[in-house]
């Protein structure tokens, strides 16, 4: 229970946050230039007078403002995100259909960026001031300044178009008819480029943080004690410094996991990855506001879930946190 109680508190807070986002969505619809009913219908060309009248009635747009707000939020609570007239399907169905692809992509990118980032940060801090440290920090600085979508396009150009090593398009080979392991391998091959370009920026962030954190902890007294005890450099680094240095990195990673979801819009657009980010991009061109707002809400929910999960991991890694809370 000691572990669960604070999590319960966070869940309540998460629900309140999601409700607040639903309210924000409502105000956004009304902030859009033009009639909210037309906004909801989207400029699909299909918005005839009769449909607009129906929408106005369905969303109670002829009712007082607070009633409209209430019914909008209530619809969201019931997971009714409205209907995408452009795609001819309920928004929730569209999102659920695409969500697994985005989850695979963002989770893989998260794991790649965190493990590589921490490993390279530790490596750089162990060789601080040497040439290999400079090379690593310069690379991190470059990746940190690289636009995500451009890195993705260049990766397609080099590894897919020029070298032909990896597919640069889609989720699996269309019409190949793979099954079982062959299919999984096919998906993995399609996943490598999108996941690594999405993780590149964050890898740089985590690497810089790990390196700084390692160097800071290395100055502390207990490390001197360990050194005085005659422990070897690698043992001190792994067992004493890294364990303490890694905590702020994991916290930051948890907070930034949300940015991965946003970044997925760009990566999925470049690689035609069939996730919710690509759905959002398609909806932008179609001005399909219902879908855009639905994806927005779901990505915020994903961020909250990510945060709660890291919090949980954090408590397991460091029991002191649970005791303090």
């Amino acid at each position, binding site marked *: 229970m000691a572990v669960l109680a604070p999590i319960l508190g966070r869940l309540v807070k998460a629900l309140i946050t999601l409700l607040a986002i639903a309210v924000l969505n409502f105000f956004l619809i009304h902030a859009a230039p033009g009639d909210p009913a037309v906004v909801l219908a989207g400029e699909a060309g299909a918005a005839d007078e009769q449909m607009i009248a129906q929408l106005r009635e369905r969303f109670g747009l002829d009712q007082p403002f607070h009633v409209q707000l209430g019914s909008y939020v209530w619809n969201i609570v019931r997971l009714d995100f409205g209907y995408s007239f452009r795609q001819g399907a309920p928004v929730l169905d569209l999102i659920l259909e695409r969500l697994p692809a985005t989850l695979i992509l963002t989770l893989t990118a998260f794991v790649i960026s965190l493990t590589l980032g921490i490993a390279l940060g530790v490596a750089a801090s162990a060789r601080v001031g040497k040439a290999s440290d400079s090379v690593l920090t310069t690379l991190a600085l470059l990746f940190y300044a690289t636009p995500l979508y*451009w890195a993705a*396009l260049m990766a397609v150009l080099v590894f897919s178009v020029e070298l032909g090593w990896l597919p640069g398009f889609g989720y699996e080979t269309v019409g190949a008819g793979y099954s079982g392991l062959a299919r999984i391998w096919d998906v993995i091959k399609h996943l490598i480029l999108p996941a690594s370009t999405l993780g590149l920026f964050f890898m740089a962030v985590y690497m*810089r943080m790990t390196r700084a954190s390692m160097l800071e902890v290395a100055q502390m007294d207990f490390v001197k004690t360990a050194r005085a005890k005659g422990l070897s450099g690698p043992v001190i680094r792994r067992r004493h410094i890294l364990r303490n240095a890694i905590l702020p990195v994991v916290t930051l990673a948890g907070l930034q996991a949300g940015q991965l979801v*946003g970044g997925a819009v760009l990566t999925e657009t470049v690689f035609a990855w069939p996730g919710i980010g690509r759905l959002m991009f398609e909806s932008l061109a179609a001005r399909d506001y219902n879908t855009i707002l639905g994806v927005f809400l779901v990505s*915020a929910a994903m961020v909250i879930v990510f945060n709660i999960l890291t919090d949980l991991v954090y408590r397991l890694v460091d029991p002191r946190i649970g005791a303090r809370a």
Partner: protein
Amino acid sequence: MIRRFASNKGAVIGVLILLIVIGLALSADLLFPRGPWAMVQRPFLVPFTMDGFPLGTDTLGRDVAAGLVHGARVSLLVGLVSTIVALAIGVPLGAVAGFYGGWADEGAMRFTEFFQTIPNFALAIVLVAILEPTLTSITLAIAIVSWPPVARLVRAEVMAVKSREYVDAARLAGLSNIRILTGEVLPNTVSPIIVMASLMVATAILLESSLSFLGLGDPNAMSWGYMIGAARTVIRSAWWLSFFPGVAILVTVLALNLIGEGLNDALNPHLSRKGTA
């Protein structure tokens, strides 16, 4: 302080690069008086093959170099203005929260936390899509997603400074809260804000380019992100259309990051160990 900044090689390179970019942006009309939209040659002209068009032409025969130079204006302008707007939201909010504490702090921080939970980029997309893409809405959207870290930073700094002796002295001298906050406390929080602001301009440029890449740029303003977005589908046949604008973004953002780190080392020397990471 300036000497400390100048002794940082990275920071000096950053300043030089930024000055060149600013210079190009300012002289865009002199260098390319026909503007970035004029169709000046045959489409898909390969770079380095024709005098006068060193970076080639795009799918409609527009000069890529002209696009880059005119696009620099949009990137710098949006980066700078959105950072100023974000500071205008974040600084007062963080200052009030940190200075007054109590329910003002509680309320302001809840509000900030809410905005920090929402995925930045997704919110920016939604805002620009709904408000229609114009330079104003893009700048505003970037400011709205960028202010929360400012508010948190200012709050922490104000809380650290407000219990210093000279603040007590000002209070004893009978100065009003507002005078103490604006005259005594805030001036002492300026250096970390400057460091953060320089890094925010870099992030804002990345955000603007990402929005334009998705087709959410101002249709009347040539921008680097738009150029890459428009070239996305022809990447297999015309690499240079996406390559050069990307390099422009990378170099500009890198320069701003280097300047930010240099400022950090120069303004907060006691933190320089962390800052060099």
